[in-house]
């Protein structure tokens, strides 16, 4: 899994810093929600800055949809509050919240044309009878469907239907746009182009948006900041780069992208020890002698043939080598202290590394080779036994 964090949101590396204006945008405060005594949301708090695009990511059943429905007013939270534009809307029904929703099923009205669907939420008294049509057409034009205005949803492709649904949600000029897995029913190509389209529109209108997805690539590429949820709790809320680089818990590290976990290291200051290997950490850990887990992404593992300094390096054999298009995936077995590293018969320390094709051909590596492996100090992440990241500035939960 290689998620290239290429995005162009122009909002700086951590646009979340803008969220220090709690009176605007969206604010969720300590929301709890249970169904039949089963907690689905536990103390979820979230602050989305105006114009920000936030993705909510998490495994199935973790409460993403429920969170979105609470924000929309379709579910009433057991406790906690929801603020939109600075005003408390917890007791205000959906109709009064000014939220636009895009559903996974599109939920387009099949007996109305695309134009009528978009015009559905435009009200005569506020918009004026003649300009309703005008405005609906403009919106259809905005999503590139002006020619299909008179078609019924059943006559449009899935991607076109989702565009109509987007136009319909945007028509009454909501202050917040909520999207629940809007792209998951579409095939890969359409999904790619709609991602860009949604982002383009959202930026152009400057609208605050929250999108639920179970596709991490989608979340990483689209969002200004993203939320990772786990079992009804908000685990981490940060920019995609930060979530990828500095996951706050072991769950996030495991859930997003690929990650090597090296278990059972003993911490001593800024050094982690394990069977004769010393690994220097970017910063000293709090308590000496505690057991920690080191983690590193496969693409951060450096492979060489004696070409780099010795810090955090050891020798390993290439157990497997697999071509995966963008590069080679190597399964490495630490060799130097193989005996010492043998971990209760589990076969020693195993590690995966991603090697670019160029580097692989430079090194002329093949399965069975002996290579030197280095774990760059600044790329290491360290987790305490309870699964939280420790010891690094900016790595902990917000």
């Amino acid at each position: 899994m290689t998620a290239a964090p290429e995005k162009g949101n122009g909002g700086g590396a951590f646009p979340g810093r803008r969220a220090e204006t709690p009176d605007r945008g969206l604010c969720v405060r300590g929301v709890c929600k249970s169904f039949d005594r089963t907690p689905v949301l536990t103390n979820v708090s979230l602050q989305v800055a105006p114009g920000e695009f936030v993705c909510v990511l998490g495994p199935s059943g973790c409460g993403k949809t429920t969170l979105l429905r609470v924000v929309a007013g379709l579910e009433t939270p057991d406790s906690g509050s929801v603020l939109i534009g600075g005003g408390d809307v917890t007791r205000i029904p959906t109709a009064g919240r000014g939220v636009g929703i895009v559903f996974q099923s599109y939920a387009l009205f099949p007996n109305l044309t695309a134009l009528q669907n978009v015009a559905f939420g435009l009200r005569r008294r506020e918009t004026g009878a003649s300009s309703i049509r005008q405005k609906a057409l403009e919106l259809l034009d905005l999503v590139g469907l002006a020619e299909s205005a008179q078609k019924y949803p059943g006559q449009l492709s899935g991607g076109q239907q989702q565009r109509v649904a987007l136009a319909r949600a945007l028509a009454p000029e909501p202050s917040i746009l909520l999207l629940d897995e809007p792209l998951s029913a579409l095939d890969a190509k359409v999904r790619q182009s709609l991602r860009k389209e949604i982002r383009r529109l959202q930026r152009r209108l400057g609208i605050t948006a929250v999108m639920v997805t179970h596709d991490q690539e989608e979340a990483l590429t689209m969002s200004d900041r993203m939320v990772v949820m786990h079992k009804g709790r908000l685990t981490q809320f940060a920019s995609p780069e930060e979530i990828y680089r500095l996951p706050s818990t072991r769950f996030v590290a495991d859930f997003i992208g690929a990650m090597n976990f090296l278990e059972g290291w003993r911490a001593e200051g800024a050094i982690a020890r394990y069977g004769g290997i010393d690994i220097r950490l970017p910063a000293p850990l709090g308590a000496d002698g505690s057991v920690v887990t080191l983690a590193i992404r496969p693409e951060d593992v450096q492979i060489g043939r004696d070409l780099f300094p010795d810090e955090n390096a050891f020798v390993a054999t290439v157990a497997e080598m697999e071509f995966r298009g963008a590069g080679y995936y190597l399964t490495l077995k630490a060799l130097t202290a193989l005996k010492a590293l043998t971990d209760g018969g589990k076969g020693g320390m195993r590690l995966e590394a991603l090697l670019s094709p160029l580097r692989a051909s430079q090194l002329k590596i093949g399965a069975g080779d002996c290579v030197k492996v280095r774990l760059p100090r600044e790329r290491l992440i360290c987790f305490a036994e309870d699964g939280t990241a420790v010891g690094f500035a900016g790595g902990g939960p917000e």
Partner: protein
Amino acid sequence: MTATPARRRYVNDKPAQAVLLAGSLLFMTVGLLLPLGELAVKCLTDANGAYVGPDNFIRFFSAASLARALYHSLYVSLMSTLAALPPAFLFAYSLTRTTIPGKAFFRHIAMLPLFAPTMLLGVSLVYLFGRKGIVTSGLFGALPWLGIDIGLYGSTGIIIAEAILVFPPSVMILLTALANSDARLYEAAESLGANKPEIFWSVTLPGVKYGVTSAAFVCFTLVFTDFGVPKVVGGNYGVLATDIYKQVVGQQNFNLGATISVVMLLPTLLAFIADNWLRRRQEGVVNSRSIPLVPKRNATRDLACFAFCLCASSVILAVFLTALFASLANLWPYRLTPTLRHYNFRDYAGGGYLAFWNSVRMAGYSALLGTAMTFGSAYLVEKTRKFAWARRTVYCLSLAPLALPGLVVGLAYIFLFNSAVFSVAGREIPNPLSRLYGTMLLLVVCNVVHFYTVGFLTASAALRQLDREFEAAAESLSVPFYATFRRVTLPLCLPAVIDIAGYFFVSSMATVSAVIFLYTPDLQLASVAVVNMDDAGDSAPAAAMSILIVAANIMAKAVFELASRRARKAAERWRNR
């Protein structure tokens, strides 16, 4: 666009939904719960309103004639069910699993008995097998060898007529059961080398066994609670339904009438519960991956099935044509020249055309109110989110009428609406509801409640087919729920709505059991007129009135069918280019 207000002007849906739910609950309370409560009171008290506990029931079971009526009812119900099920199964099998021609024709003919008041079957049988009947007299002496007297009056007549009466509903249930088949099972059985009879016993029958039990329960209940047929051909063979009528209308013994109706309710409730229990176990037999079975041609089997369908249809047609023939014959059996004089109801009891048009109006209003109530309630239950407990209650109350025989509903209604005062704890309070007695409104409400469940379930099924998020999407657009209902939900469910209206119209037009206690001399009804004219020995005008009811129903059904087809075509247009 960035400077949009966070909040939007909106209509709060909650009060309106609360009012509508309260309306639905009120309707079911007044139309169902209060009458049933009054019925319960009546069967536990004596004529003076004093509490007597189970005395009425003890009297019932110790009176030989009444206990015998219970036995009779059970006997004819069982026999009619046994008589109707095999032909109904064969008929439904022929329509689903063979390649015979004329399936649509056969299906329509089989549904014909639904359009008639149940007395028509009795009257017609009298003209066929009665003392001066076509068969009994050997085609009026022309074929003396044919002249056999089957002893129609009594259990024989009841069983024959009821078997025809329950044919359509059992065929309908079995058609659904047989249509839900999985071709893969049959292929598997064939590849295992099973022969035709083995496949029938090991695949076909197990697949429809719940359909068969369900049809059996429906047959049993219908016969057990039917009033029209035993009234006409029962003779001295008393059953519970006719006994209730005799006690209440003849002897004005309301308490015993209530007691008998509770006795009648018990097996019906048991059948209802058993059927529901079995149906719940059946779910998941056919799933979305099932491949529907396409019948293959088989000359011998198809020929036999075709011949059978022809016979069954002929029997049903013969019954209706006999009634038509008898209504047109000048003086049965002596002068058979055609005349319309029996259609001139002036000289007979029952109210004549006034009664007929009353019935048409009643059926029309029942269709309107019934459709509005059932579809509206189903909409509130399925598509709104607030007031969960109220919606749950509405749902449960909506299922209850299915278990209630028409006679019980009608009886409960007179108890509630015909008493000027309630006596509560020794004190008398005036009954405001008694003002409804003798009005068209009460008849309509009675019909709506009587036929409520089928309409409600049809509406629920149609509503459940719609995307669950329509309402949420509309809410987020600040569109009030009634606007969404009018512009989206209703148009999308229009075919089902029309079907429901048709069902209410046809059922209300033909029903007699519930309304026979509620009509007044100022407000007579066609189906009641049939009973009264037949009672007075005027069989020909009774047949004529029955034929008018059938004709009105066929015409109404045709109109509803056309409308529903047009609505379906519109839905088609949304789907295709």
